[in-house]
C-alpha cells in the first residue's frame, strides 16, 4: 500500500490503521506554538500539515501605523533570538529609501553586533536541537556561552533580548569603555568552549544516527521551496548574501561560507544543517576578530538621519543574511513619516513551508529532529 505525501511515497510492509496526532500548539518539540497535524501509521508518518498563526501579532499592520523609527522595537520581536539582525535589515531598507549611509565605525559596530548575535542565535539553535534529539546538557552549555554574549549586549545597549540598537543611519550609542576588550575575551573563550559542543553533541554516535540521512532536502528542492540560510547551505548550495551580495563592509572581510557536504550521511540532511550552524559560529567569531582589528574612532550616527523623519517615495527591498536565512524587508513609502507598506519576508516562515513535505515517510521521532533542524522561531513565522 502506498500513501502519497507531496512527491514522496511512503511504502509500508504492514499497513495498519492511521492515527491522527496533534503535535502542538503546546508540545516540547515545536519550539513555541506551532501546531503540526501528523498522520501516522504506527511510528511512521504518512502525512503532515502545519497550522500557524498562534503568535500572529500584526507586525506588518503595525508597520503601516507607526513612524519609521518607532517600528524598530517591533522588528526585535519577530525573530527574538536575532534581534540585532532584524534591526539591521530594517535599518538598511530605510537607509536605502533615505539615500543615507552609516559612518564607518557604525558599520563595523553593526557587523560585530550582528555576528555576535548570529553566534548567540546559533548557540540556541544547536542547543535546542540537542533537546529535540534528547540530549539536555549541550543546551545548558550553549546558554552559558550565550549568557556572556547577552552581557556584552546588555553593556552596549541596555537590553538582553530586544535590543532596538541598530537604527537607520547608524547605531544608538557608541560602545562603552572596555567593551571591545570584553568582546575580544569572548572570542577567545568561545574557541575554547566550541569543542565541547562538538564532542558532546555533534560527534556523538547517537546524534549522528538520529540526524544523518534524516530529512534530506535536495539542492533542487531547497531552491524551489525558497529555503535560505543554513537550510539552503545545508543542502549544498553555496550561497551567502554576506559574500555574494555584500552589505555593510562584508565585502572587505575574510570568511568562508560553510556548505553541507554530507560528511555523515547525504547532503542536505539534518546533520548537515546543524553542521553548517556549528561552523558558521566559528566563522562569525573570525569576522568579529577582524572587525575588532579594523575598527577606528569616529562617529556612530549619520547626522542627517534623526529620530523622526520622512522618507522619499519609493520601494526598497533589502535582504540580509539572518541566522535563519534571508530576512527581507520590502518597504514602500509615499513620502510620509509612516510606511505605506511594510512587508517582512521572514526566513523561518519560508523554511517551515517545506517541512510538511519532508515529514511523510519519516518516523515520529524524526518529526522533532526535522522541525528542530529547520530552526524556526515562531515569533517570526507568525510575525
Amino acid at each position, binding site marked *: 500500500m502506498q500513501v502519497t505525501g507531496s512527491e514522496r511515497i511512503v511504502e509500508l510492509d504492514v499497513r495498519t490503521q492511521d492515527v491522527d496526532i496533534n503535535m502542538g500548539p503546546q508540545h516540547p518539540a515545536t519550539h513555541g506554538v506551532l501546531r503540526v497535524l501528523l498522520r501516522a501509521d504506527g511510528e511512521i508518518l504518512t502525512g503532515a500539515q502545519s497550522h500557524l498563526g498562534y503568535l500572529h501579532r500584526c507586525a506588518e499592520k503595525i508597520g503601516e501605523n507607526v*513612524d519609521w523609527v518607532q517600528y*524598530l*522595537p517591533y522588528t526585535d520581536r519577530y525573530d527574538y533570538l536575532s534581534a540585532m539582525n532584524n534591526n539591521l535589515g530594517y535599518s538598511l531598507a530605510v537607509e536605502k529609501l533615505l539615500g543615507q549611509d552609516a559612518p564607518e565605525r557604525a558599520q563595523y559596530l553593526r557587523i560585530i553586533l550582528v555576528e555576535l548575535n548570529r553566534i548567540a542565535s546559533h548557540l540556541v539553535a544547536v542547543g535546542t536541537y540537542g533537546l529535540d534529539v534528547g540530549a539536555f546538557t549541550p543546551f545548558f552549555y550553549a546558554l552559558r556561552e550565550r549568557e556572556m554574549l547577552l552581557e556584552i549586549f546588555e553593556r552596549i*545597549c541596555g537590553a538582553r533580548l530586544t535590543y532596538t540598537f541598530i537604527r537607520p543611519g547608524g547605531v544608538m550609542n557608541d560602545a562603552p569603555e572596555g567593551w571591545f576588550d570584553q568582546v575580544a575575551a569572548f572570542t577567545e573563550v568561545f*574557541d575554547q568552549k566550541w569543542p565541547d559542543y562538538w*564532542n*558532546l553533541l555533534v560527534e556523538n*554516535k547517537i546524534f549522528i544516527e538520529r540526524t544523518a540521512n534524516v530529512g534530506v532536502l535536495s539542492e533542487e528542492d531547497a531552491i524551489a521551496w525558497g529555503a535560505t540560510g543554513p537550510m539552503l547551505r545545508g543542502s549544498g548550495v553555496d550561497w551567502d548574501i554576506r559574500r555574494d551580495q555584500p552589505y555593510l563592509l562584508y565585502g572587505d572581510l575574510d570568511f568562508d561560507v560553510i556548505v553541507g557536504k554530507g560528511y*555523515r550521511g547525504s547532503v542536505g540532511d539534518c546533520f548537515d544543517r546543524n553542521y553548517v550552524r556549528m561552523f558558521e559560529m566559528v566563522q562569525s567569531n573570525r569576522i568579529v576578530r577582524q572587525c575588532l582589528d579594523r575598527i577606528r574612532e569616529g562617529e556612530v550616527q549619520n547626522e542627517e538621519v534623526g529620530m523622526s523623519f520622512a522618507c522619499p517615495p519609493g520601494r526598497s527591498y533589502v535582504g540580509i543574511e539572518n541566522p535563519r536565512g534571508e530576512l527581507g524587508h520590502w518597504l514602500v513609502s509615499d513620502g510620509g513619516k509612516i510606511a505605506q507598506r511594510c512587508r517582512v519576508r521572514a526566513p523561518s516562515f519560508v523554511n517551515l513551508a517545506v517541512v510538511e513535505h519532508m515529514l511523510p515517510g519519516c518516523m515520529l521521532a524524526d518529526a522533532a529532529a526535522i522541525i528542530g533542524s529547520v530552526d524556526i522561531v515562531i515569533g517570526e513565522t507568525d510575525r
Partner: protein
Amino acid sequence: MNQLLQEPTQDGSQRTWFGNVYSAIRSTASGMGVTLRHLFSKPVTLQYPEERPIVDDRYRGVHYLEQDLCIYCDACAKACPIDCIDMEAVRHGKELEWKTFTVDYQKCMHCELCVYPCPKDCIHLGQEITHLAEDRSDLVHELLSYTGLTEEQKVRIAEAEAKKAAKKAALAAKKATEVKEPTEAEDPAETQDAVETENPEEEQKDG
C-alpha cells in the same frame, strides 16, 4: 587554533558493523569525559534572590523621571511607539503643576525611544529589573515624586504674578496716559499657556 575547529573528513568506517560499535563506544566515552569535567567545575549560575546580577549603567529597566527638569513637552509620549506614556500638568506661567505622569508597563517595551527625543534629558530607564504586581493596574507606574505645587513653586508663581500685575498696572498706567494708541489684546504669558508644545519638540526632529 584548536584542531577541532577544522572541518571533519568523510569517515566511511562508521558505516560498518565494527565501525558502528567502535564509534558508539568512543563517542560516548568522549562525551562522558566532557560531562565529567563539568561535573567538577564551578557552576556559573547565581542563586537569584540572594545574589543579584550586576546590572550595567545602560540597562533599560523601569523608568525614572527628573521631575524638576521636565518641561511637559510631550516629546517622549509622542516618540513612544505604543503610547504607554501618559502625562498631565497645568502651566502657571513658567511653573508646572503636575497632575500625573504614568508609564503603563503592560505595554512598555523598554525600547528607550522615549529617552532620545527628550530636550532636557530628564527621563531615563533605570536599573530596576523586576516588575512585580498583584494587579494589572499596579503595572501603571506613577513616575512623579510629588503632584500639585510645592511651596517654592507657589512662592515663585506669586512672585511672577506680582510681577505680571505690576507690569499690567504699569501698562495700564501707560495706556491711561496714551489712550489713543492700540493695545495688545492678550498677555504674553497667557499665550504661552495656550500652546501645549514648545520648541524643543522641533529640535528633536532634527536628531
